[in-house]
């Protein structure tokens, strides 16, 4: 039979553990026992409990110490302290440290029955809440994107409608808002879903490399072109081509791209044969494309060619109501990937997550939670395990002792992070809470060199 809930009994006396376990098992609870504090903490790190029954007086770690440590592992678990020594002091201390209640031994069976019943029912309600939340979450999903904010709902609606057409979609939004995920979702919902989804980061490559990457090249087209190669426009035939960081392409490539979009045909680099293309363009940028047009850095005709269906992803700070939903979403992923019994974040940790501004948006949140999931000692992630504060790397850049501008501070931080990660771009980007392309851009913009 399915157990009603789990209870942990902590007492140094074997007969107390056995008899209490037996008494509670008659109610249908799953009961674990621990003879001392350390054994109890080990169990708490592995399993979520509805109630903890802890003896106050134990050799080594006493009940109050177990209570304090248990609360760092499972902050929301109610702890009942059992004591034979009914002094007001210990009772007050236990309640101050967050014990749910205390029972003076021996206590009436009725008293224990009611207390445990009340607490396990409350937990059952919390569980039901989680299940309802999960059911709700399914309603708020668009493929891998999760949201219940009206702004994002509007984005999903627009994206769903856009997906059905063959029109070019321009996805706008800050770094980390999920532009590529949205592009993938549009592709997956489109009639081209059985075709390939091919992505190119336009900012990560030099003009020549990007040209060859997009259009392919013929053998001998340039030094090092030992054989001919197909470009992304050919590879993506029948599917969707995702052009990320479109605002960063050079004027020459802007023109080339415009021609392809107009004529639906192109030539490989060094080739003469015209190749027909059948791709759906999904473009994205975190830059203000309209401003680039106004300043002349981006072709107006290409802008209008791309801006057929513009979709703007709001930054996370403008849809904070999504944070609990996203937390549940990412923790569900971590649970599966790490095979850890993660139940959620503590109320205090959630408060911190809600208060943060999230300059790195959903990606930053995902990284913070991933770290929390790795660091978590118990099933509930605590504020300490989230480490939302900036790493110590910035310690030297406090406003009092440094005249650096924000730009200088950012540059210094990136250099330090790159050094710390041995110039591994992926790892550095993850640690910084930005994507690789953005990091490449910043390296380029700040002219950061590996040897500095």
């Amino acid at each position: 039979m399915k157990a009603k809930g789990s209870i942990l009994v902590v007492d140094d006396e074997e007969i107390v553990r056995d008899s209490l376990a037996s008494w509670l098992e008659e109610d249908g609870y799953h009961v674990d026992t621990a003879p001392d504090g350390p054994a109890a903490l080990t169990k708490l790190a592995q399993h979520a409990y509805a109630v903890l029954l802890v003896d106050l007086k134990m050799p080594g770690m006493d009940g109050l110490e177990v209570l304090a440590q248990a609360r760092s592992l499972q902050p929301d678990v109610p702890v009942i302290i059992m004591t034979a020594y009914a002094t007001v002091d210990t009772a007050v201390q236990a309640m101050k440290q967050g014990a749910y209640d205390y029972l003076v031994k021996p206590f009436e069976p009725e008293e224990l029955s009611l207390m445990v019943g009340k607490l396990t029912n409350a937990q059952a309600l919390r569980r039901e809440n989680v299940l309802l939340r999960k059911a709700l979450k399914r309603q708020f999903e668009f493929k891998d994107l999760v949201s219940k904010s009206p702004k994002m709902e509007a984005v999903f609606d627009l994206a769903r409608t856009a997906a059905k057409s063959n029109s070019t979609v321009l996805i706008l939004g800050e770094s980390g808002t999920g532009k590529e995920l949205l592009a993938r979702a549009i592709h997956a919902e489109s009639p081209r879903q059985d075709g390939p989804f091919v992505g190119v980061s336009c900012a990560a490559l030099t003009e020549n490399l990007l040209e060859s990457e997009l259009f392919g090249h013929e053998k001998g087209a340039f030094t090092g072109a030992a054989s001919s190669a197909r470009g992304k426009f050919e590879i993506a035939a029948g599917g969707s081509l995702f052009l990320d960081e479109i605002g960063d392409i050079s004027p020459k490539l802007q023109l080339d791209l415009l021609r392809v979009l107009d004529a639906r045909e192109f030539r490989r680099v060094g080739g003469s044969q015209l190749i027909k293309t059948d791709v759906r363009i999904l473009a994205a940028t975190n830059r203000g494309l309209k401003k680039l047009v106004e300043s002349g850095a981006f072709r107006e005709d290409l802008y209008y060619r791309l801006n057929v269906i513009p979709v703007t992803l709001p930054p996370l700070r403008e849809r904070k109501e999504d944070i609990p939903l996203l937390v549940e979403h990412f923790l569900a992923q971590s649970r599966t990937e790490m095979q850890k019994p993660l139940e959620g974040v503590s109320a205090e940790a959630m408060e911190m997550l809600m208060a943060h501004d999230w300059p790195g948006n959903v990606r930053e949140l995902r990284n913070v939670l991933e770290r929390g999931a790795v660091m978590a000692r118990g099933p509930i992630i605590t504020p300490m395990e989230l480490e939302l504060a900036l790493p110590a790397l910035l310690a030297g850049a406090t406003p009092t002792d440094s005249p650096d501008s924000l730009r200088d501070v950012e540059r210094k931080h990136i250099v330090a992070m790159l050094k710390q990660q041995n110039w591994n771009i992926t790892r550095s980007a993850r640690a910084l809470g930005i994507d690789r392309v953005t990091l490449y851009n910043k390296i380029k913009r700040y002219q950061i060199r590996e040897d500095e």
Partner: protein
Amino acid sequence: MAGRGTILLQWMGMAPMDGEMLERVRQEVETTFALPTHLVAVNGPPADSLEPRRGQHSSTKILRWVLTRLPPGVAKVLGITDVDLFIPVLTFVFGEAQVDGPAAVVSTARLRLTYNERPAPPTLLEVRLLKECLHELGHTFGLVHCPNGTCLMSRSNSILEVDQKRAAFCRDCRQRLRKLLEERNGS
């Protein structure tokens, strides 16, 4: 008394066994669980189960003692005693059982009294004892407490609650018990 499907009721009281009353309980147990049921008197409870300070006997220690003396071929043993039982953290218990295990113990000490602590009439004692015996044996077959207050398997924390429940399982517990017995016989 051979066979894995027998139930043994062991009287282990300070007073002599009330053979007539326990024989009627035995018959009800046999009918309820559809298994051959036997009644014997043994010397008990064990001396070390007494806690002199409380003047009560530890049900857990009696249970352990019963387990060490489990006769071969017996599936379930129910110790019946007239001493007051307790577990260390609680003021008293009516009985104790191992859920889905071979042993249980039950006491008549608190069943003998009415609410104003006067002796209960023998018929009332008998029906109370029957309820508690079937209840504790129900645990040994795998049943847990039932939220239905009139069901035999509901938890009783007071004599009032013992009297409030019927001497029968509710429909859900009856079905569950039938299933558990079938699984047991099939295995």
